[in-house]
């Protein structure tokens, strides 16, 4: 059997995200296996298409903002996952093996299952969600809401399960595990992401699916409240705190409108830009809980334009799916991911970069490309 290094690179990187120690090794693994894939001709070579040009343009502006930001060394040190994003984006989009993106999705399902297990094991010895996260030692989970990344991929995994019994079997184990992990971590955000992704997918599937999804969600919500879980009784101050952080991000942007304060430097700038003493949450928060506003504050208007161009290129690169299941999957994932990016995701998180590379590949990789440039057939 011929070893496909591109597949090894991507799947190894995904599974390597399980712990901090393995995540450190996952990057050189991705680089070396990716280089082997290139040397063996497993990656399509050719000029960059507009998606890749948009990726590179954003990367260049990001690097420029880092170099001229408030703390270049800090920006550099915390930006290692962005290198993984670039490598992943290239390998996923250029691998000759067409099943690679699908396999990457399955590897992410395995990673989510591992994270859920880690959380559940850790929760047996710890009460506070933050302590559970620390004890779980998962590279992608820094705060409890980080578990929400997997909620937006449920439509994709369920669609894959409809085509492959092995995936269906894996989903029957992994998805309930994730749900229990969401509750164990008291992550309302993860449940909300799941609810939105499910409803969006249901909307595309038709009235019957909407009724089923709405009934299921309402029943699950009522059960949570009736069970008296900590999740049901959590205060809602986090929404006010988010609004204040968004306002702080805009204040930082007004001070540094062109190139921002540099990646990951929001935390250094915002206490001086607002009345930090009057915040609902008195702690310093390293990210503004909104990816667009973080990009705006940290890379300025130029960075936001580049990021918007990248999203535009990625979402318009292919024709939208015409079949109902494909459309439902696309709407579900897009809605969940958008919600997550708007209220939680950060450039500080590895999962943001990993998920972005994967979603770009899903959106632009296979079949129906309007310009077909991956194969050098750019119009």
């Amino acid at each position, binding site marked *: 059997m011929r070893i496909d290094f591109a597949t090894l690179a991507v799947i190894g990187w995904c599974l390597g995200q399980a712990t*901090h120690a393995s*995540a450190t090794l996952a990057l050189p693994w991705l680089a*070396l296996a990716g280089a082997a894939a290139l040397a063996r001709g497993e990656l399509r070579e050719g000029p960059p298409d507009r998606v890749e040009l948009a990726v590179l343009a954003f990367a260049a502006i990001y690097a420029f903002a880092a170099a001229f930001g408030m703390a270049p060394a800090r920006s550099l*040190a915390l930006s*290692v996952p962005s290198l993984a994003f670039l490598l992943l984006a290239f390998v996923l989009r250029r691998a000759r093996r067409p099943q690679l993106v699908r396999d990457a999705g399955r590897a992410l399902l395995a990673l989510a299952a591992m994270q859920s297990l880690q959380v559940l094991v850790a929760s047996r010895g710890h009460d506070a969600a933050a302590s559970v996260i620390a004890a779980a030692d998962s590279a992608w989970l820094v705060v409890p809401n980080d578990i929400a990344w997997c909620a937006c991929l449920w439509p994709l995994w369920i669609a894959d399960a409809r085509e492959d019994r092995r995936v269906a079997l894996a989903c029957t184990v992994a998805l309930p595990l994730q749900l229990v992990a969401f509750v164990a971590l008291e992550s309302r955000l993860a449940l909300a992401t799941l609810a939105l992704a499910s409803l969006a997918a249901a909307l595309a599937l038709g009235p019957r699916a909407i009724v089923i999804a709405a009934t299921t969600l309402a029943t699950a919500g009522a059960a949570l409240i009736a069970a008296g879980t900590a999740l049901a009784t959590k205060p809602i101050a986090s929404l006010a705190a988010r609004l204040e952080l968004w306002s702080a991000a805009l204040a930082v942007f007004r001070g540094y409108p062109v190139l921002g304060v540099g990646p990951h430097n929001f*935390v250094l700038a915002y206490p001086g830009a607002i009345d930090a003493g009057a915040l609902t949450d008195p702690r310093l928060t390293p990210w503004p809980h909104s990816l667009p506003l973080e990009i705006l504050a940290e890379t300025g208007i130029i960075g936001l334009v580049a990021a918007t161009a990248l999203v535009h290129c990625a979402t318009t690169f292919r024709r939208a799916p015409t079949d109902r299941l494909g459309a439902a999957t696309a709407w579900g994932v897009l809605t969940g991911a958008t919600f997550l990016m708007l209220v939680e995701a950060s450039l500080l998180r590895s999962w943001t970069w990993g998920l972005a590379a994967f979603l770009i590949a899903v959106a632009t990789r296979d079949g129906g490309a309007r310009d077909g440039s991956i194969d050098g057939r750019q119009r």
Partner: protein
Amino acid sequence: MVVNGRQWFRGAFAALVALALVASVVFPAWSQSLALHGYYADLVTTIRPLTAYRAGRPVELEVRVRNQGPDAVGAVDLVLSPDRFAPGWSVDPCVRWAQPTCRLGALLVGQTAVSFVRAMLRPDARGVATVGAYARSEARDTLLGNEIAVTGGAIEVASDLGVDADPPARLSSGEVEWTVWVTNHGPADAHAPTWRIEASGASVRFAQCLAGGSATSCPTASGTANLGVHGVWMLRFRASPASGDAPLHLRFEVSSSEGAIEGTAPNAVEASTNGTLLADGFE
């Protein structure tokens, strides 16, 4: 030079691979750094005494180190800079690895480490004692100044003077001789203690004074000499009663210098020539 698409991709991908490998070497713990959010943390230190500063006595202090973020820090050290304290600190519960520095361990954002410091003030310490506490970590402090805290206070001199006496003896000259011993039980020197002798209806004079067994000049009623820890003065008085065999009542009282903390040993003795020796414990 014309760069075709293949060359472009090979060059760009090779550069990314090289960058990733270099980053893996330069930032070997980058994953953990992300989990800790990096390298910036505002450590805030506060210190307060739980007991008074008394010379020769232990002082207990509470030190709090709070991490106000934005990053968690892996190893926080607490450095203490004492002034006028004796060696032999104990700091609980942090791990002491070099006196007077100890390791508090990791501090997550918003977490506070509380340490209890117990230290002995030198017996000869006088004036003002200070203790500085400084929290340091591998993270860069975002708000300089508040990671250092200093507390201090006037040192109270703690001595415990005690008085003991022989029964008065009548001399052939008709005078009454009375010997008392003043002992400083410590733990600190007694500075300029004062004493007072009462003998109603009689005149009193010093006959002999010994300090540590050696003759010394008799202090006056408001003496200024110091009495070191465990030092003993022997004071011998002679009193002349109004008439030859009239009963005489004598009282000797010693007081520490102003502001000093006194112990529990009796500070006064009384004697009477009718054969009864009274000793009490009141000051």
